[in-house]
């Protein structure tokens, strides 16, 4: 059985090479080969073009334009002069930019590990045959597909400092200095972090669940034979097998953390003061509120570079670990 199927695949695999390798009329073969290549190229492009045209015009062209714009003083009137690196120099001395950068890094440093651990924990809880798993998976995923405006509206009320449910709960537990949440410069960022973790946990949990399915059961059995306890099974079997998933989740989490925007925009609008001002919002403000397109593009390039850099670093780090 196995032998026959092996033979069959081998035969199929060798068929094209033997056909092209026949010595008869090589020139004619080559010409028809080139023709076939041309035909395939035409067919391939005809499939790709409808989507690629839109993709190229609306994504690739803007990426290139962004780099160019960052070197100009482009403003609302479209008048633009080439100013070299002046925008970047100005960035270095801009305290608002430094605040935005600091806030974004602070957000990322907290959000990435917390969400990673929370979503992995949820996935481990759910990766068992217990009742209600399907229900819980649905529940956990629901915040992710809910619109940001509704989410911000409801959480803003939940966080209401005077009579909001969260502070009522805290005071029931005897907390005395109740946090002001979105109206306090110290607590606005933690409020954002809480909502974002709540919102994305279920999404990354799904990715982890898919990853957990790939862990071979034999490994657990072998580990149990060796007398491994639950914790060491997790450490020596689950985590190493999950590494591709963990890698992917970490990359996505970090990129998404650095481009955090929509929730900040609708929940705090960067405030109070500049306590939740993040890079994306800084771009929005400079670009669309103050019409400094050139300057805003320089910030966009910085954000772009951060996201690409994260991907590259994590890619090589993962490669090294694999080797």
């Amino acid at each position, binding site marked *: 059985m196995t032998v026959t199927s092996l033979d069959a695949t081998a035969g199929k695999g060798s068929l094209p090479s033997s056909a092209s390798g026949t010595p008869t009329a090589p020139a004619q073969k080559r010409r028809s080969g080139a023709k076939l290549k041309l035909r395939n190229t035409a067919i391939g492009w005809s499939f*790709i073009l409808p989507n690629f045209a839109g993709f190229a*015009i609306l994504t690739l062209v803007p990426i290139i334009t962004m780099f160019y714009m960052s070197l100009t003083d482009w403003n609302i009137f479209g008048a633009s002069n080439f100013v070299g690196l002046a925008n970047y120099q100005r960035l270095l001395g801009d305290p608002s930019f430094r605040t935005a950068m600091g806030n974004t890094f602070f957000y990322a440093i907290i959000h990435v590990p917390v969400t990673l651990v929370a979503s992995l924990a949820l996935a481990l809880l759910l990766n068992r045959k217990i009742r209600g798993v399907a229900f*819980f998976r649905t529940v956990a995923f629901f915040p992710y597909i809910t619109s940001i405006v*509704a989410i911000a509206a409801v959480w803003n*009320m939940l966080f209401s400092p005077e009579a909001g449910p969260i502070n009522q709960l805290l005071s029931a537990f005897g907390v005395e200095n109740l946090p002001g949440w979105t109206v306090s410069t110290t607590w606005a960022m933690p409020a954002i972090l809480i909502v974002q973790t709540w919102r994305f946990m279920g999404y990354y949990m799904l990715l982890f669940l*898919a990853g957990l399915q790939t862990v071979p*059961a034999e490994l657990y059995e072998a580990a149990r034979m060796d007398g491994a306890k639950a914790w060491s099974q997790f450490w020596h079997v689950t985590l190493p097998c999950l590494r591709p*998933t963990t890698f992917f989740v970490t990359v996505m989490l970090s990129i998404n953390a650095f*481009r955090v925007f929509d929730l900040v925009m609708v929940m705090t609008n960067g405030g109070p003061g500049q306590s939740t001002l993040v890079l994306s919002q800084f771009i929005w403000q400079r670009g669309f509120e103050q019409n400094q397109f050139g300057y805003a593009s320089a910030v966009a390039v910085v954000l772009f570079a951060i*996201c690409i850099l994260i991907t590259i670093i994590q890619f090589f780090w993962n490669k090294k670990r694999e080797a």
Partner: protein
Amino acid sequence: MSVSTEIRVAVETHVSGAQAPGRKRAAAASVSLRLLGYIALAVASVGLLLPFVWMLVSSLKRNIDVFTVPIQWIPDPVVWENYLTIWQRTNMGTWLGNTLFISVIVTVLQVLTGAFAAYGFARVRFPGRDILFLAYIGTIAVPWQAIMIPQFIMMSNWGLANTRWSIILLQAFGAFGVFLMKQYFESIPESLNEAARIDGLNEYGIWWRIMMPLSVPAIASLTLLTFVNTWNDFLGPLLYLRDNSLWTVQVGLRTFIGQFASEHAMIMTGSVLSVLPIAIIFFLGQRYFVEGIASTGVKG
């Protein structure tokens, strides 16, 4: 490159539908551990759901009852009128219509062009194909915020700003659809294509009559994810749509909140209405959401 590898790993799990074991651990776990797991799950679900419960409950209250100490979990009196008043107070009907219009067109375009391009990437061999695909993958790391300014200038120059078409163009040609469909197409045995070719079907016929019918689960995932994504988009419409009559439900609701910040009950009513269509779609098709997410792990 590696991103696609991760994705393939996830896809294979799902496509093969492998109910891989690895769960048997639970059997060994003691009853108390199991109980602990249930308690943890219960606490987590309450935490995850409570904001939605609160939204729904508050939408049925009088405004003065929204913030009470202690919290009133059952509205008294129940104010069903909120759900009538909101249609008169706001342009909700128009907004919902706009959102539906945009979401449907974007979804159709995304599914058709995405699946079409995916076939080119998955089944046709030609020079430059892999580099082209890399360009698609590469843009996953590019935040929309970085390119929104050049995009906006382009759209304005074409006279598309402040039209619904700007949002449609913005959303319809993402890399996401190409990606998801390509992964799925590659899981379909190539021998089917060869058989069809021998029977005289050309590549377009194979795409339409063989690949598409076999890819219904992936198409369903893509359709639902694109629809929900477009429905929920807030920043695009906020930037492009200036006239009240063009607004989507997200921008409309946001503006209402800005104008009537103290009308808590009405805000919650609007929120429920904006979430409701998505909730219904989600509960009807959640299998496809889960599979779509698990197989690509990429969204906007």
